[in-house]
């Protein structure tokens, strides 16, 4: 055992693993949201985090409402914003190259953060508290391990949402059409699959997942700022690419994996060294991309940008 190894291993206990699973589940939900839209539109939506941010602000501004209504408002705002984004920006760009679309979503990301700042700053300070859901942040002790209620919620919601999505995609006609559109959009349209219908479905589901994540993250961090979820989105985007963005389940696994690894590394690093977390995570990412460029969970070697 080397000098570094002993304290590192000692700190990876059940507590760290439980928290890492919670983070992995949350990131998996984000990965599905990003992967669904990518599957249909071949568009990496960098502004996905700002959908979550908008949801978090909605929770903050409606924190005096009954919690259920506050959550309904969050879903309403995020799904509406998601549809607006598709209608106003993605649709006119549908024939453009992936690079143009990616850069455009960068721009949307910054515009939405600026708008959030303008709304937020009206009371003279940046950031809004979102206290109504903090009761979920209370830990309960299971076998000596403190599990926050929100971790349980995150894991259950992730399992439930992914299960429902799998049923929708696997067992319904609209799901079949969506899978076909994700595999070969042009041929699907030639067969009569309505482009706007499957895109609309993907965008609404993606928005619903963003709203779900907004609720979970707001419980954990009940103080909303314009850059809320920005860091998480970057990590998840990396995870999605590392997992294999071309398929929904590999993207989801990638999201879970990077969340889980981040949680473990975060727990393993001494508290004064957590600034190195991104370095460690991205070092692992570089390693994965060198060894398996098509994606960690992708069988065989298929091109990531094989399209139309």
């Amino acid at each position, binding site marked *: 055992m080397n000098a570094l190894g002993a304290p590192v291993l000692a700190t990876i206990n059940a507590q760290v693993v439980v928290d890492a699973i919670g983070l992995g589940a949350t990131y998996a939900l984000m990965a599905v949201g990003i992967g669904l839209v990518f599957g249909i539109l071949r568009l990496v939506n960098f502004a996905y985090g700002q959908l979550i941010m908008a949801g978090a602000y909605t929770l903050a501004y409606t924190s005096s409402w009954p919690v259920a209504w506050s959550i309904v408002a969050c879903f309403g705002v995020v799904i509406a914003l998601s549809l607006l984004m598709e209608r106003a920006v993605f649709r006119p760009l549908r024939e453009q190259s992936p690079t143009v679309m990616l850069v455009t979503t960068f721009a949307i990301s910054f515009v939405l953060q600026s708008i959030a700042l303008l709304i937020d700053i009206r009371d003279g300070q940046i950031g809004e508290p979102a206290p109504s859901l903090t009761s979920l942040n209370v830990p309960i002790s299971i076998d000596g391990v403190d599990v926050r209620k929100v971790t349980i919620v995150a894991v259950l919601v992730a399992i439930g949402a992914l299960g429902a999505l799998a049923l929708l995609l696997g067992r319904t*006609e609209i799901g*079949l*059409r969506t*899978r*076909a559109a994700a*595999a*070969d959009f*042009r*041929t*699907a*349209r*030639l*067969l*009569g*699959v*309505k*482009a706007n219908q499957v895109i609309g479905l993907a965008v609404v589901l993606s928005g619903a997942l963003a709203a779900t994540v907004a609720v979970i993250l707001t419980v954990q961090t009940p103080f909303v700022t314009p850059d809320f979820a920005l860091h998480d989105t970057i990590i998840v985007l990396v995870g999605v690419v590392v997992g294999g963005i071309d398929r929904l389940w590999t993207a989801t696994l990638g999201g879970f994996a990077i969340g889980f690894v981040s949680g473990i590394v975060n727990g393993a690093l001494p508290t004064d060294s957590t600034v190195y977390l991104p370095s460690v995570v991205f070092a692992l990412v570089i390693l994965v991309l060198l060894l398996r460029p098509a994606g960690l969970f992708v069988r065989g070697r298929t091109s990531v940008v094989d399209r139309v």
Partner: protein
Amino acid sequence: MSPAMLEIDGLDVSYGGIAAVRGLSIEVGKGEIVGLIGPNGAGKSTTLHAVMGLVATRHGEIRLAGTSLRGRAPEEVTRSGISLVPEGRRIFADLTVEENLRLGLSGRRSREGAAEDIEAVYALFPIVKDFRRRRAGVLSGGQQQQLAIARALVAGPDVLLLDEPSLGLAPKIVDVVFETLAEIRRRGITVLLVEQRAQRTVAFADRTYLMANGEIRLTMTPADAADTDTMVAAYLS
């Protein structure tokens, strides 16, 4: 004279300023089979794509039974009654044979008669029925081509466009494809067939147009079948 089933009138298509199809006019009467042959890059596939609304047209009209298809999206063209069997078959390899077929149903104008049409397609292609639970990707090239045609037929089209259905198939399988086309003709479906196998197409179709550089150079009938190669060579030189 009643209006043609499919009418292409003065079609111009260009990609990035380069003309791919110039002033093309073709009429396909109801129940007719019309062939379109010519070298690579002649504009045959582009013509089919223009009909389907996959590429923007600069000039010209495309009409189905007298109604203009201008501005319609591919899924709307399919619902209007034109189905394309695309080049390279474009089977969904990860989906089952049956799922591929069900996707074809999304191009129908109504659900009415869907079950009968699926049964008819199963009768025409027993292989599609036998393998319906399998992943489409494991089928051979010839079987995939049959599935691609079956998938287009379950939409109940009035007009079937085929883009090189014999491409990459063994001669015996090519026979099967042409027998299928003969059966489709017997069912009264109008066909526009793009092919590389010139002589075979000329012999089979009611009329065959030779296309080069985006234009029609020559019209041939089955009587010309024996001389196809010399005629094509003469007009392309």
